[in-house]
């Protein structure tokens, strides 16, 4: 697939997922932002495949299950680190959010460490790399069990 067709596919995915407003928001930078997003998504797929021996396909997910796939094509995905993209995909696959450690200090670096648990019981850790990685927290579903907060799932914002 050529770079041009990859950009077209992403443009269509943004449209289908209700994020087409991004293109207008990006304005004159839209083409370069699209091109960078394509590169980032390729990097994500390659790194994910290297780690887990299977290639993720967010476009296929969007096609087969638009409501679920939409969560991946929101603006936050395009500004967070590769590590967080992998974390998102693992949650969307079915991992549980076991632990979130978020340390913020106005005068120091922010630290975000998320531990997931696979359906098979293995734990995986993902550390934020960019200041904007905290945005993933906005998409976690939240519920309660006996007054205890349970974070689960990764969903599109309204």
């Amino acid at each position: 697939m050529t770079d041009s067709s990859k950009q077209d596919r992403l443009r269509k995915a943004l449209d289908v997922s209700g994020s087409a407003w991004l293109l207008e928001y990006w304005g004159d930078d839209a083409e370069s932002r699209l091109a960078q997003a394509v590169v980032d998504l390729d990097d994500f797929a390659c790194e994910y495949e290297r780690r887990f021996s299977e290639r993720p396909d967010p476009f296929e997910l969007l096609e087969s299950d638009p409501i679920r796939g939409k969560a991946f094509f929101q603006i936050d995905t395009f500004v967070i680190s590769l590590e967080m993209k992998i974390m998102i995909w693992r949650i969307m696959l079915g991992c549980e959010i076991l632990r979130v450690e978020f340390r913020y200090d106005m005068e120091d670096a922010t630290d975000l460490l998320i531990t997931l648990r696979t359906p098979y019981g293995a734990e995986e850790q993902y550390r934020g790399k960019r200041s904007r990685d905290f945005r993933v927290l906005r998409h976690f579903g939240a519920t309660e069990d006996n007054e205890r907060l349970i974070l689960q799932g990764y969903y599109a914002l309204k």
Partner: protein
Amino acid sequence: MIGGVDVVLWVRDDIPATDVIFRCVRHHWPKLVFQDAEEDSMPYSAQSSQWLPRPAGPEFFIYRDEEAARSWDAQGATPDNANTMLYVILGKRRQAKTGLKSLTLVCGDLTGDMRRIVDEIAASFRDSVEGLRYPAEAA
């Protein structure tokens, strides 16, 4: 069909309801077994894939485990398998002003694990309804 209690929730239709439900139920029933309402044969094995189950239709059953699924299949509702199955109906009714869609959970009674499961599902959908939204999308 199973008597008991109907709980009607109002949910956003841009949130994957089945994803939310299975995550909540799995929290309490890690060996859950699910069955589409239209399915004839019973799926006796717990989910083996990392993917959460993806029901084909708007109605499906979730059993606590394989034993519960077998019991329901063979005998229907009995005192022994009480509260080991949740019947989910993704409804078509819609609230006029909010646009939220109905979702009905049918269970034996709201006690024990079932109470916690239903409460957890309700809290999860409540959070998504009350969640924030981007200004650009709010207009």
